[in-house]
């Protein structure tokens, strides 16, 4: 397998959750959480998943880590079919792929010290021979996320939100993963601390050569960290492309609408913007054809009957929209 092949290759991935009602818990419908998603993540690449709540961002993350099973589609990790990995290799995969969650308060055990939390994965994966070696490794890991060794024996309650998130990142890094999912890792933090965590992740990507799936509702933060961005709406990928190009010249009407909704931090540029009207439709009964058409300013009759395929429109750029002349 050549080294240039992507680390993760996702083809036509779908996940539907059953909706059950009544005493007999009969299936009355499906939540279309992810529909026909295809994308790749290269080694050393950060792919951003942008989208509003309910767009399927976190479902894709959980599918890629095989925390949940897809309804259909394929995922390959380093050339192997992730969905058919034998038990021993799945255990290996659990070491190679890690996740950092949004809430650093809920993802650390309040009774464990920092050293215990960071070394737990090492012990579970049998990567250290002794407690003493584990402590040495913990000190190295904490240094990597700029936390002094004096914090080793403190508990999460004594740490600030930013420090807790650093500890969570150190814990994820402890098993030397190749791939990290960061699910809104900075969203719960104060403004002055957010930039610290984003910069830390950017630095780790360069120093450790990590591949990353970065999930955020903040596309401005994403543009700073990610190499490419995939924009999701109602479980479908609307557009994928290199960050600066996608943010600078969006090709899909939804991407353009999402970007125009981001408040501009320059009061001189205050303006009346075209607002995206209404709300995201229910994922239990998504619109026919293009799922965005019910809110799209550019929708035409064909949008209701044809599901637009994700098609290449430029070097490295793809969009799922029938029209070439918009936005």
């Amino acid at each position: 397998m050549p080294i240039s092949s992507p680390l993760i290759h996702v083809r036509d991935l779908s996940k539907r959750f059953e909706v059950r009602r009544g005493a007999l818990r009969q299936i009355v419908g499906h939540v279309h959480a992810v529909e026909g998603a295809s994308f790749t993540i290269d080694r050393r690449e950060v792919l951003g998943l942008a989208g509003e709540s309910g767009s399927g961002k976190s479902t894709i993350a959980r599918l890629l880590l095989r925390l949940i099973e897809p309804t259909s589609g394929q995922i390959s990790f380093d050339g192997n079919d992730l969905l058919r990995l034998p038990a021993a290799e799945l255990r290996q995969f659990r070491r190679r792929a890690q996740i950092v969650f949004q809430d650093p308060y809920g993802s650390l055990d309040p009774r464990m010290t920092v050293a215990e939390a960071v070394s737990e994965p090492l012990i579970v994966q049998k990567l250290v021979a002794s407690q003493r070696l584990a402590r040495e490794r913990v000190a190295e890991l904490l240094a990597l996320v700029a936390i002094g060794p004096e914090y080793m024996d403190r508990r999460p309650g004594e740490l600030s939100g930013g420090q807790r998130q650093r500890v969570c990142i150190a814990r994820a890094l402890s098993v030397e993963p190749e791939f990290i999912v960061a699910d809104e890792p900075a969203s719960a933090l104060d403004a002055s601390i957010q930039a610290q965590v984003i910069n830390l992740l950017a630095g780790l990507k360069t120093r450790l050569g990590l591949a990353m799936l970065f999930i955020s509702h903040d596309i401005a933060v994403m543009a700073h960290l990610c190499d490419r961005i995939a924009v999701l709406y109602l479980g479908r990928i609307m557009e994928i492309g290199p960050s600066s190009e996608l943010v600078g010249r969006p090709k899909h009407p939804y991407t353009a609408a999402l970007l125009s909704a981001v408040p501009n931090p320059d009061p001189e540029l205050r303006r009346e913007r075209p607002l995206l009207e209404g709300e995201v439709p229910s994922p239990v009964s998504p619109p026919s054809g293009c799922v965005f058409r019910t809110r799209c300013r550019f929708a035409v009759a064909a949008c209701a009957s044809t599901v637009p395929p994700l098609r290449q429109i430029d070097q490295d750029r793809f969009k799922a929209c029938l029209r070439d002349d918009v936005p």
Partner: protein
Amino acid sequence: MQHATPSPPLLDVDALTVHYRARAGLVHAVSDVSFQLGQGETLAIVGESGSGKSTTGLAIMGLLPTDRRTVVHGAIRLTSKSGSINDVLRLSDRERRRVRGNDVAMIFQDPMSSLNPIYSIGSQIIEAVQQHRNVARRAAVADALRLLAELGVPSPDRILASYPHQLSGGMRQRVMIAIALSCRPRALIADEPTTALDVTIQAQILALLKRVQRDTAMAVVFITHNLAVVAEVADRIVVMYAGRIVETGPVRDVFKSPRMPYTRSLLRSLPRLGHVRRSGDPLEAIPGNVPSPLALPPGCTFHPRCPHQVGGVCDGLIPNLEPCAPNRLVRCARWREID
């Protein structure tokens, strides 16, 4: 939306200080905070967690605890519809309930926890209307329908019949705004009203608040941690850090030439869509952490994180909040030197 502040101001917060006696010590939640707000004006109070911005909002609403553990000093003078001036901090509970809703109303970050899950939306709006105005139920229902329609809620009668959990976050926030506006208050305190919402819904709610304000000349205190939202909605800004105002002035001026190093760093740490040169460019981060309100550093509370701090100057006395330009105040011992 620039308005000259008429005299007397609609809202006059004068040397507000709020301390809590906690088991671990005295919590300096708000220290010596003063600002005025005129009709039709939007003032943004910006700060991180523990900056005292929400406590200031609760104080204006008369919602601070009245137990012996809470120490409140200063005055919050509010000009009522009749023209009389009341100090919210010195009103009886009953008088305070009359002011609340009538003269000043509040919306919060999480509309789910502000709405009662077991009552329909309609009965909650009607309750708010009838609390303050002596109207029959039918008139109150008509009022509720009209309010929702004014706020751009599609099929208001269906919304009135539904329960909070059946609505989206954006729709719940619209309902909260309808309840807040039901008695046509002269001032609205909005505490992080769009923080829990998606950006496209945030844009809708911000546009809605602007429109209501244009139509009613209501004054708004917008409490947020999001400077980009401030740039979109506010006329003036108050920046708080560790319970104190550290900088205040017109939004355009403060954003163009922030004087307090904290404001500068905050503005520079903002990710900006237009300024992405290439991915991986570091954002400017502020080192260290927000100090604990139980153990504030001596002198300027920002000095341990400040790139311009000088020993013997910044760690001694708390600097005064002093004029640095027309309509602008800054709390920094070195603001003249660090341009």
